[in-house]
């Protein structure tokens, strides 16, 4: 298995074969055809989206603007349907039978977030909407050969070629191939299924060097967790100071691959409609607002504090998984440049 290769030119064949079987092929692409702002800057305009042919794929990218969580946990998803008529009122659950979804060109950080989503959707109660989608997803990660200033995977103990969460890990070679490594059984079966597309090569491939992402020197994730675990630090005035500039737009949560919060609402007419799960964000004032008007997180710093705590304390302690994979999206999308790593540094100093 170690010597399997995937020729970049053959990806079109893979897409065709999958599309013929009714599968969805998701890859980094630029669906809007917006040209980059400056030459060589492509990262900002790349998104994970379904593609129909290889020409749509952007191969030169750092990280897509969205995470691929929307293919496992859609931004909006009907969970039940209701009818209100003369014969009475009824509600039936929605069945999901997702198509196989291949996520090509995932980044290792995004792949690492899958275990975190799986954990929250499965502790005790099992959310089959999530599970069925994740079961049908094949994560084909491409190890990073480039990074930008916002990338900080190594600071949270991942690497630009970490295999966690990937079914298949691809490493780019210097001659237009990917060196293929099956990480899971699912990945192994996938490679076997398309044996004609994945070629064998006797000699060891010459790999492109992996991106050099240096851990941020002043950050100690373990120390942060310990500091957060002490409930008296919850009242530290530092929180107000650090989160002061947050405007509560919630962009960080929508861009984040591990943020999983959602709302449940009914939509429809007086006669029929659907009950829908929608992404929501702990950064919004209404998120925790009681009917009485009381709000336990009534100011923005409390909401920001909650998100930070969730990432670096609740997720690791409660779900034994990562709340942060260091993808850096929250830094890139933040309109006020509230850099989570700066807060991590501040807390590491304490």
């Amino acid at each position, binding site marked *: 298995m170690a010597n399997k290769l995937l020729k970049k030119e053959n990806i079109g064949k893979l897409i065709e074969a999958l599309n013929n079987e009714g599968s969805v092929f998701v890859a980094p692409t630029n669906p809007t055809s917006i040209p980059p702002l400056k030459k060589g800057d492509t990262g900002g305009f790349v998104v994970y989206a379904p593609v129909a042919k290889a020409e749509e794929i952007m191969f030169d990218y750092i990280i897509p603007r969205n995470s691929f969580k929307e293919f496992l946990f859609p931004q909006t998803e009907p969970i039940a349907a209701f009818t209100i008529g003369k014969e009475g009122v009824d509600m039936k*659950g929605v*069945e999901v039978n997702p198509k196989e979804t291949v996520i090509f060109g995932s980044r290792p950080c995004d792949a690492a977030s899958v275990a975190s989503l799986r954990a929250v959707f499965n502790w*005790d109660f099992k959310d089959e909407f999530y599970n069925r989608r994740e079961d049908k997803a094949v994560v084909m990660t491409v190890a990073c050969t480039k990074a930008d200033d916002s990338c900080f995977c190594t600071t949270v103990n991942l690497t630009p070629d970490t295999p966690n969460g990937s079914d298949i890990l691809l490493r780019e070679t210097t001659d237009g191939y990917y060196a293929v490594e099956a990480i899971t059984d699912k990945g192994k079966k996938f490679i076997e299924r398309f044996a004609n597309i994945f070629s064998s090569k006797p000699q060891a491939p010459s790999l492109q060097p992996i991106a050099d992402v240096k851990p941020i020197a002043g950050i100690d994730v373990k120390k942060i967790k310990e500091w957060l675990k002490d409930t008296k630090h919850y009242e530290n005035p530092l929180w107000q100071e650090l989160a002061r500039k947050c405007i509560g737009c919630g962009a960080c949560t929508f861009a984040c691959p591990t943020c999983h919060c959602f709302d*449940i609402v009914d939509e429809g007419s007086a006669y029929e409609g659907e009950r829908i799960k929608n992404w929501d964000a702990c950064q919004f004032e209404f998120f925790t607002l009681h009917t009485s008007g009381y709000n336990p997180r009534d100011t923005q710093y409390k909401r920001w504090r909650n998100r930070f705590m969730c990432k670096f304390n609740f997720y690791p302690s409660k779900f034994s998984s990562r709340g942060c994979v260091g993808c850096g999206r929250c830094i890139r999308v933040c309109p006020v440049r509230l850099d989570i790593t700066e807060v991590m540094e501040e807390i590491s100093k304490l």
Partner: protein
Amino acid sequence: MDNIYLPYLATIEDIYEEAPDVRTFKLVFKDEKVRETFSFKTGQFGLYSVFGAGESTFCIASSPTHRGYIQCTFRKSGRVTGGLSDLGIGDTMGFRGPYGNWFPIDEWKGKNLVFIAGGIGLPPVRSVIWNCLDRRKDFGDITIVYGAKSVADLVYKNELSHWSEMSDIKLVQTVDPGGETPDWKGKIGFVPTVLEQATPSPKDAIAITCGPPIMIKFVLQALNKLGFSDEQVYTTLENKMKCGVGKCGRCNVGDIYICKEGPVYTAAEVKRMYNDF
């Protein structure tokens, strides 16, 4: 496919007007099998839904000893409770649950019980009260301190008058200053003050309290003054919830998901939590 978000269908069999904009629904599950097998423990909650308006979280206000139906009490104030208010007897609504933990009443055998509730905080406490009254011999003295903004705002007026006539219950009712009527015979004052004046003994006692967060805060102080330790005091933390099953991410108090690990806690447990409520 297993769908953890799909409610049972229930018929509203009866409606009781409790106070201005406060109603109690008696709900009977449509599915015979659910009707026969459904059980819960006192203190657990559910998600009640009006199709088209959405879901809201309330406790189950009836006692688990009363089989065949459940009750919920709500105040009309938002979209869902507004939708619930538009429903009448015979209409269909949804219920998911029971969820969460419960009051450990089996551990309270032989204890004196002090129930303290404010306003719309009585429904969860009422479930425990009836549960304990249905096994009255298991417990010692029972004291109930209940207050509301005004006489009109007191909920379960029939039951209050029933409890006031029972010789083995000490019921203290109060309304906030200004909320009394000319013929009001109860106390006038805030619940924590009235509780202190009632001087329930902490000896072999358990206190159970629910009400607005500010009331709970001062009730805990009053109980401490009376000599109750934090381990003797139970409360139910009802944060906003959407899923009820530990996924949607909003009911957490620090690292504690109220919907899964709560909503029932001792005051000692509450004091160990992050100050996030």
